[in-house]
C-alpha cells in the first residue's frame, strides 16, 4: 500500500482552477520527485496535501486514512512535515526557537538534535542568531531541520535548490539521502539534475494534471519524453 495517494484532486484558488486532475501514489520510503514547468501546479499540489488549500472534489489519503479537508495542524500531527518554497522561516526568532517550535512538546530529543547538528553544522554555529540574518542556504537547512526534528513519515519539500550555490546543493542532496533512509520525501523540483540524482519514483505535472508516472531510471534515459514534458533542452 502506498503511503500517500491523491485521487482526482482538484483545487481552486479564488475563481481559478489550478489543479484539474492530480492522481498519484507515493510509495513508502525514498525520494519521490514531482517535476513540472513553472506554474504547472507543483506548489499547489503540496499545499493541497497540507490542507492549506482545500481540494474539492478529490481526496488525499495518508496511511490509508482520508485526510481531505482536515485542518492543516491536524494533518501535520499525523506525521507530515512541510518545507515550503519560501522556506517559511520565522525571521524574528532565533535558530533555536525556530527548531524548538517544531517540536511537539517544546523539548529536544537529544539524538534527533545531534542528527540535525551532524547534517547541518552551520545551524549549530548560528544557534542563537535570529533567523533573518542567515544566508539563503542556511535558511533552507533550518527549514529542512525543522521538518526532521520530530519523527515524521512524510516530508513535503518545495524546490529546495532555488537560488542556492552548487556547493550547498550538493550538501543538501547528501542530507536528503540520509533523511530518505528514515522517511519518505515528496520532492517538488525544477532542477532536473538535482532531482534525478535523488529520485526513485517520479511523476510529471502539467497544467494541473499528472501527465506521466514512472521510475526515475526510465525517465532519465528517455530524452524524447523529457523534452516533451519539461522542454528542458530547448
Amino acid at each position, binding site marked *: 500500500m502506498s503511503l500517500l495517494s491523491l485521487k482526482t484532486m482538484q483545487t481552486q484558488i479564488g475563481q481559478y482552477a489550478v489543479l484539474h486532475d492530480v492522481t498519484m501514489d507515493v510509495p513508502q520510503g525514498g525520494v519521490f520527485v514531482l517535476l513540472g514547468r513553472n506554474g504547472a501546479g507543483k506548489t499547489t499540489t503540496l499545499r493541497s496535501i497540507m490542507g492549506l488549500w482545500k481540494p474539492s472534489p478529490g481526496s488525499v489519503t495518508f496511511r490509508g486514512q482520508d485526510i481531505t479537508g482536515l485542518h*492543516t*495542524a491536524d494533518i501535520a500531527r499525523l506525521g507530515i512535515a512541510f518545507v515550503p518554497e519560501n522556506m517559511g522561516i520565522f525571521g*524574528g*526568532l532565533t535558530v533555536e*526557537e525556530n527548531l524548538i517550535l517544531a517540536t511537539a512538546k517544546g523539548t529536544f530529543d537529544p539524538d534527533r538534535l545531534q542528527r540535525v547538528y551532524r547534517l547541518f553544522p552551520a545551524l549549530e554555529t548560528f544557534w542563537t542568531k535570529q533567523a533573518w540574518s542567515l544566508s539563503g542556504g542556511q535558511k533552507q537547512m533550518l527549514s529542512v531541520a*525543522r521538518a526532521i526534528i520530530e519523527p515524521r513519515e512524510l516530508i513535503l519539500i518545495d524546490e529546495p535548490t532555488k537560488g542556492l550555490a552548487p556547493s550547498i546543493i550538493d550538501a543538501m542532496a547528501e542530507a536528503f539521502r540520509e533523511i530518505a533512509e528514515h522517511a519518505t520525501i515528496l520532492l517538488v523540483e525544477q532542477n532536473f539534475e538535482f532531482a534525478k540524482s535523488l529520485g526513485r519514483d517520479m511523476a510529471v505535472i502539467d497544467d494541473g494534471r499528472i501527465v506521466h508516472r514512472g521510475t526515475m531510471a526510465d525517465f532519465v534515459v528517455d530524452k524524447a519524453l523529457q523534452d516533451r514534458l519539461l522542454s528542458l533542452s530547448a
Partner: protein
Amino acid sequence: MEQLNKTLERFGGVNLLPVAVALVAFVLIGAPSSWVTLTVAGLAMGMMIFLMASGLSLVFGLMDVLNFGHSAFVSFGAFVAASVLGWLAGWLGSDSVFLNAAAILLAFTAAILFGLIAGWFFETVVIKPVYNDHLRQILITMGALIVSEQIILAVWGGTPMSVPRPQFLEGSVLIGDVANEVYRLFAFVLGLIVYLALYVTLNRTRIGLLVRAGVENREMVEALGFRIDRLFIGVFMAGSALAAMGGAMWAGYETLITPALGAEMMIVVFIVVIIGGLGSVEGTLLGAIMVGLVANYVGFLAPKLALASNMLLMMAILLWRPNGLRPAVK
C-alpha cells in the same frame, strides 16, 4: 552614512526616538521642572495608551483581523471600573491604604474580567464569521462599535460621570524639587509592569513563542502542527482585557468620563499602532510613548497645535517609514 546607521542601530535604533524627542523638548521648554512634569505625564499617558493598543496590534498581527470595535473595550473598562469605584466610595475615602488598594484592585479586576468575557463574545460571535474578509470585517466591527456605544449610553446615560480616586493616589509627590501627580507615577509603574509581564510571556514561554511565530507566518505554524485559531481566541481575550484595564486606568486619570471616550481613544490607539508598526508589541510601546510625550510637550509649547500633533507625528513617521517604526517581521 551607513556607518552612522550601524552605530545608531547598536545603541537601539528607533528606540532612541523618544529620547531624542525628550532632549529636543528639554531645549525648547527651557525650564527643567516643567520638563520633568511633562515627561512624567507623557510617559504615564503613553503606558495607558500602550495597554489599550497592544491587544489590537497583536490581534492584527496574528490573524490579520483589524478590530474597529476595539475601543469599545476601552470604554467598557472605564465605565465598569468607574461604577465599581462609585459603589466602593466608602473604602476609597477611608484612611486605610489597604481598603484604598482593595477598592482599586476590585475595580481593575472587574474591568479585566469584563474585557475577557466581552472579548470572548466578540471574537466568537462578531469576528469569527468574517475571518479573511477585510471589507466585511471593517464594516462589522464598526457596526459592533456603534452598538457598544449605544449600550454604554443606555446603561450609563449620556452625562459625564465622575470617577472617584482612592485617597492614596491623590495629590502629588516631589521628585527632586518637582511636584508630580501620584496617579501618573502609579499609571506609569503599573503600565510598565504589564509591559514586562507581556514581554516575558512573549519571549520566555512556549505560548509566546507560538504567538510571535504566528504573527510572522500563520500558515507555517499550522504546518508545524499547531492550531493558531484556538490560540487566537486567547490572544483576543487577553488583548480585550488589556484594553479594558487601560480604560479603567484612564478613567482614574481623567476623573471625568463620557461615552465619547471610546471614540476619542480609538483615534489615538490607531495612530499608535500605525506609528509603531502593526503586529509588534515593542513597536506599540514605542508608538504609545512617542504619542504620549509629543502630546504633552506640544500641549505645553503650542497648545493650538496639540490637537493635530498626533496626526502630524503619524504623517511624519509614515513618510519616513511606511510600515511604522518597528513592524513585525513578515
